[in-house]
């Protein structure tokens, strides 16, 4: 999978409450959730995000609640990939299961600035900052996780195994 978009840069411990505040959890409609993505952290995010954009953040992205509404909101807002120094465990799992591309790469996070154009080869784990020309190698996924990603998420993998 190849992605290319503008980087939106955030700090560490971005929790799922700011990714999608609980006051909007009375629905699970992706389009509705997307309207409020990250609004308690960056009220302008939904206005400036364009389809294909990339979120770049420091450690422990997606900490807190298990709400799958968080990766759903990010994806529905148009973001294709989240690159972080590390991910909170449940968010990591939810992203793999639902097909939101995520990559762990501390070096890329340190080098990428807000507004840089970034391209990602998710299969090879290669991240390129097109603005500066720097190239980074992300942590590879274990084969078992790759299997879920390649199946298109956990539901598809389960269907394949059950039928």
């Amino acid at each position, binding site marked *: 999978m190849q992605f290319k978009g503008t980087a939106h840069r955030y700090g560490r411990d971005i929790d799922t409450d700011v990714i999608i505040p609980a006051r909007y*959890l009375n629905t699970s409609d992706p389009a509705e959730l997307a309207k409020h993505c990250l609004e308690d952290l960056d009220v302008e995010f939904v206005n400036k995000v364009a389809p294909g954009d990339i979120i770049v953040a420091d450690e422990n992205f997606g900490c807190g609640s*298990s709400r799958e509404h968080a990766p759903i909101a990010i994806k529905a807002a148009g973001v294709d990939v989240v690159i972080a120094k590390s991910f909170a465990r449940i968010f990591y799992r939810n992203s793999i299961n639902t097909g939101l591309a995520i990559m762990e790469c501390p070096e890329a996070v340190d080098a990428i600035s807000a507004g840089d154009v970034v391209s990602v080869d998710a299969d090879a784990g290669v991240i390129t900052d097109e603005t500066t020309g720097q190239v980074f190698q992300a942590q590879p996924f274990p084969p078992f996780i790759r299997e879920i990603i390649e199946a298109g998420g956990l539901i598809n993998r389960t269907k394949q195994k059950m039928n």
Partner: protein
Amino acid sequence: MARPMTMAEKILAAHAGLEEVEPGQLIECDLDLVLSNDVTAPIAIREFNKIGVDKVFDPEKIALVPDHYVPNKDIKSAEQAKIVRDFAHEQGITHYYEVGCMGVEHALLPEQGVVGAGDLIIGADSHTCTYGALGAFATGVGSTDAGVGYATGKAWFKVPESLLFKIEGELAPGVTGKDVILHIIGMIGVDGALYQAMEFSGSAIRNMDMDERMSISNMAIEAGGKAGLIEVDDVTRAYMDGRVEKPYTEYHSDPDAEYAKVYEINAADIQPTVAFPHLPSNTRPAAESRDVVIDQAVIGSCTNGRIVDMRQAAEVLRGRKVHPNVRCIVIPATQQVYRQCIEEGLMDVFLDANCAVSTPTCGPCLGGYMGILAAGERAIATTNRNFVGRMGDPTSEVYLASPAVAAASAVLGHIGLPQDLDEQE
């Protein structure tokens, strides 16, 4: 002879049908229980329906607990609760709890004996780690994992490394399980146990009742932990006997089991602790937090809504009045706790003190309803998270504390300790 293992590793190995497992290993396990609530179950049901099976794997091993936005806070919440109700009835789910029977899930399921030692449990709610206090491996997942769990009774896991927290000695009077876990999160940070299982032991834990132990395990996730386990002892057995429906299995860590790190904590060093905005790790002693003026106090939640918590709050509030500038909201976490509050006279204490007492709900903890904060307002809460906007307006603030500190603060009008009230009077 299998390698020496921690209790977390033993539970995972047993459920994967393996003699031994080691950290980093990816395994598929059979589940004893799959839990979800009115916020996470609607997505889990949607995903379950995509798999193409008609029936859940075992209607007795699924728990559906509407608790976040019930009694329904608005029309959309009512629709979500209805999806869960209809699915529960259609599938004949044994552990579905309607309004009037329900409670905050992580207080309700242990109380009702639905979870027990040795169980492997996934829950589409991050505080599922609470059941570690009973010697279970219980971990929070998302709705898709839960939906697949409904269909297959299985989930994939990466075997986590374990961290051991040994809390030895006696806690000072007024220091509770909540203070212990806030102290630990303050010490290691909100990702201090990321991808790892936390195990709590030591004489301070052994001398603690189950309700306080559950407060500790409950907040393992606030340090990034995958689970928060406590070894089964006579206190656990006394709690489970006559309560847990099915036979339970005790798993004890081997003496030579490997831990990624061992933390030795002197219980006497732990003070009543408050976590300042906007992270549970931003802790300070309550005694150094007296300049924080509050507008609201919330006493309840899956962290501190059990009967011991209610008693600790009532002890402070007895014969006193909540400060006129403070709203104090008390939420017993289950119907049984609610009834016990009435029978023990705690309800009179709360009402006499001018507290608002609510039917069980997660409500304000996650900024749902039943006590939302306006811009700039501050609350002290016995809940588990103080992220930006957690209880209302993004400029409001949440300070996390024990029931005793929250109750004392409600009377004082600012953060303080129960002993400050004696000095004041």
